[in-house]
């Protein structure tokens, strides 16, 4: 469909190097690119090669390149499985430390130094046309108001090392001198399980609450409380996006990028998913007769959270007053739409149960 648009590049086959291909998003996107017939070069650490081989079945257009983004020289120079060809035209940098509780040195090494190393590598790729950088909506920090897709600010508060180091990484990408190479920055929202199967890899973000409700549901008739305290604003929203939708969008954006030098996109739903409304829907799903009570004391709430096995780092995100502009993505990819929450919520809730 998008081939009808003018001003878009469209490849019959890309030669694309992917970092973080074995991750939650990476493995789905890599499969899709492989299925699309593209030549895919998966960067994999020596010690993870076996694991990678289990994830991806052998194919003609799949290549493993040994290396580590945390090393000054990303590519292993000795004993590689294959060498990286000179005519790589795209690089997709997905690898990152994603964990709200990650320690600073870890987050910094993988997100900041890792990106620096990748930039150094791609600056030396003579035929590289596009560099696709996976950022996150969290680079907005605790910005108050509508955050623009090309906006980046360091003088705002960041709730955790993850969001701060991702912001720093994105900043470096934006300021990198990349002569002929075009830059794409993707800022996905909160990624949840597959909208069709409910499949999810790990407990994260909203899943901590799902786990709590899942446990409460076991005592649903004997609950001593009537209210569920939530520390959020009435206008706080969750930019949820099911992983299959994200992968579909990314595939479209990577295979049909515009010809502009630099673009960044917020990959979030159009729908405003209010936290209170979202939680109410889940409570309904679990048939829990609890009423959501908004609590104005995030400090106290943060102290309570660990007792419920929920990381306190979630609280600032729940308190968020940030909204995310989609002007650029709507202009360049008007056909990319996310399904409404109510359409996939039951799949997500059911899919999550397997993990608890």
């Amino acid at each position: 469909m998008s081939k009808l648009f003018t001003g878009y590049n469209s490849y019959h086959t890309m030669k694309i190097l992917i970092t973080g291909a074995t991750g939650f998003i990476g493995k789905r996107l890599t499969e899709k690119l492989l299925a699309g017939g593209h030549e895919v070069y998966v960067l994999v650490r020596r010690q993870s090669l076996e694991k990678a081989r289990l994830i991806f079945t052998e194919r003609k257009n799949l290549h493993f390149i040994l290396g580590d983004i945390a090393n000054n020289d990303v590519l292993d120079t000795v004993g590689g499985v294959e060498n990286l060809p000179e005519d790589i035209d795209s690089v997709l940098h997905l690898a990152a430390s994603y964990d709200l509780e990650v320690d600073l040195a870890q987050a910094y090494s993988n997100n900041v130094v890792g990106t620096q190393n990748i930039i150094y590598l791609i600056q030396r790729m003579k035929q590289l046309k596009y560099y696709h950088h996976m950022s996150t909506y969290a680079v907005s920090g605790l910005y108050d108001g509508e955050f623009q897709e090309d906006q980046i600010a360091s003088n705002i508060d960041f709730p955790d090392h993850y969001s701060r180091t991702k912001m720093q990484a994105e900043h470096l990408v934006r300021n990198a001198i990349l002569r002929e190479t075009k830059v794409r920055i993707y800022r996905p929202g909160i990624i949840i399980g597959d909208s069709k199967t409910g499949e999810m890899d790990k407990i994260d973000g909203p899943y901590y609450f799902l786990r709590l409700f899942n446990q409460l549901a076991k005592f649903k008739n004997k609950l001593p409380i009537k209210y569920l305290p939530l520390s959020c604003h009435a206008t706080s929203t969750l930019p949820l996006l099911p992983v299959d939708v994200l992968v579909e969008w990314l595939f479209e954006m990577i295979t049909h990028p515009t010809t502009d030098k630099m673009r960044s996109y917020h990959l979030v739903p159009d729908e405003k998913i209010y936290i209170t409304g979202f939680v109410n829907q889940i409570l309904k799903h679990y048939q829990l007769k609890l009423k959501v009570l908004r609590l104005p004391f995030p400090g106290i709430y943060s102290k309570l959270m660990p007792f419920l096995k929920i990381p306190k780092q979630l609280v600032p995100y729940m308190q968020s007053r940030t909204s995310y502009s989609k002007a650029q993505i709507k202009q360049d990819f008007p056909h990319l739409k996310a399904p409404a929450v109510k359409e996939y919520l039951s799949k997500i809730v059911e899919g999550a149960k397997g993990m608890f």
Partner: protein
Amino acid sequence: MKEIITIAFGSAKENFDEKINLLGDTFRVKRLGVDFHFELALELVRKYRTQCDILSFSGFPIDIKHQGKIHTHEQTQKLRNAAGDTPWTDGANLKFMAIPLFLKNLAQKEPFLFKGKKIAFYSGIVQWDYLQAYSELSEDLIFADPYSLTGIPTVVKGLAPFKKMAGQVSPILKRLNLENLKEKDFTHKFTKAPTMKAFFDADIFIVNETQMEYLKLQDLTGKTVIIDQIDNFSRKQLDQANADKVYSCFPDFVNMPHLGFTGLEAILLAHTEKTKLDQDDLLDIIAEFKLRPEIYTPKSQKTLTTERFSFIIHPLSKSQLFQIPIIKPLETTPAGAKIEDMMKHAPGYFYGKVTGIKSDFNGKEVEGDLFVLPMTPKVMMKQKPEKVYSALNSLCQEAHKKGSKIIGLGAYTKIVGDAGVTVNEHSPIPVTTGNSLSASATLWAASFGVEKMGLVTKDSGTYQGTVMVIGATGSIGKVCARILTNQWKRIIVSAPRPYKVLELIAELKEQNPKAEVLGTSNPDKYSAECDLIITSTSAQGESVLDIMQVKPGCVICDVSRPFDISLDEAARRPDILVIASGEVALPGNVNIEKSIGLPGNIVYACLAETALLAMEGRHESFSLSRDLSYERVCEIDRLARKHGVRLAAVMGHAGEITEEEITLCRNHALKAGPRTSGRVPGQ
């Protein structure tokens, strides 16, 4: 390729990873900023020490050498320990040589930058190695360390007290957690305490790149900043603080300012393949490079800042003196007679403002402060020059405090003694006599007179007549002769000493081979042939020219003070136009708050020169002493035309000459008969 990793205490946003070719070697330099997380710095050192040839530490405290002991901050020591066998550097050696050298060069190039100025340090500890160099430039050093380190709003004044304090607190300083030193707000209300005033009153502020990230700078309007090295973030901060001028000590020869001293020293270390650099290694390398400071002019938030200048005037007569309100009632009393003399003891004072001066060329606005020295010429010339100098210098101080960047000397204040040289030496801001534009404007007036008389034809820009310069070998005369040689077909230069005349003739012929140049030591020989005569002598009122022999319709421009042509002489020849000077009008909607003795908005050309220099940001002693330079007169002439300073009044011996008066003079000349005869009417 040699790999260098710089661990910087500052922001990660300034990180880079680059290949650099220098000294015939290739280096890869990677900067990792830790955003003031010390533990992260430590982790990164441990993690990356094996991946590089050299580690460099930027923004962490360097060693403090005091009374024979070396004090190393505990956290700095931890970093060094963590480096293990990997050679490390912190740039301190290079800075220790380069910064004082840079300061010396700067002071030589811009003497007014430091002279009589107060230098303030956000933290003297951070600048420890260079304090000696600063103390050689100014005695007034002010240290805000108490506030920077502890938040107590007070300062330490003077280098010795500061060193003493630093010595006493060094055991505590060594243990201060670096992360706690973040975010010092110099706009905080605590800093408004009177104990901090001396800091904010300073003229020059010393800061380093790392500090820029955690200091919230006060408004730096009109202030100068010296920074060890400048990055994009610092530029933004300094733009916001509205600093006037910023000097970065980092040499710009590598065209990689972000490399910084630590990065550069690391490169040098890698290049020499030593584990530590000594001063001699660096001496050789520094000698090889030419250290040029980078000068950054912040993009002011206020798009067009108003530059200030000052100008000193004084009463030209006793009657003008009594226009001073507080002594006015005394004029008619018996004391009145003595007042004139007594005023030599009175201090100078602020008189009023000149506002609304705006360049026609770029809209740049300047504003002037007028100061009065309450001495009449008679009193001033009777004084010992030193006394007048000192009175003028206190006005220079005052002007500097009011934010002026340059000051001009009006009327007799530039005649006293050595004509501004001594005053300039002791002034905190450059002094100019304004003589260059005065000369230029007088020649404008002469041309205007010649044009209005309309008796000389002009062919392709050259007057087809004769001009004579009397006193042509003197400083002003020579400049006039050189300028007029370009404008007139025939020029006669006159001076008492023939060998000097011959020298000048050769010079003028070289300058304009087309001009006919003649010399004489007797002006009367040619006066009947001249259409314009410039007299610039030191004849002290003695006659230099027999006015009765001068050609009718001639314009005489009398530049000498006292005048060469007396009022009586001028009156005897109504067919000759005698001009004393040209005064000018400044561009813009100029408002002169209080009268400076000229009608309307007309100002002295020397005041206009001061205003022009401020407008151009040329804070320099443009005209000093009794000597004039041809190049400078031409330059100020160009600047005046560029910004829209124009001739507004032709002044004669008894005030402004109107156009009617010129017409009258022309009619007399026409009546006087054939202009080529050389005959003088009445003979």
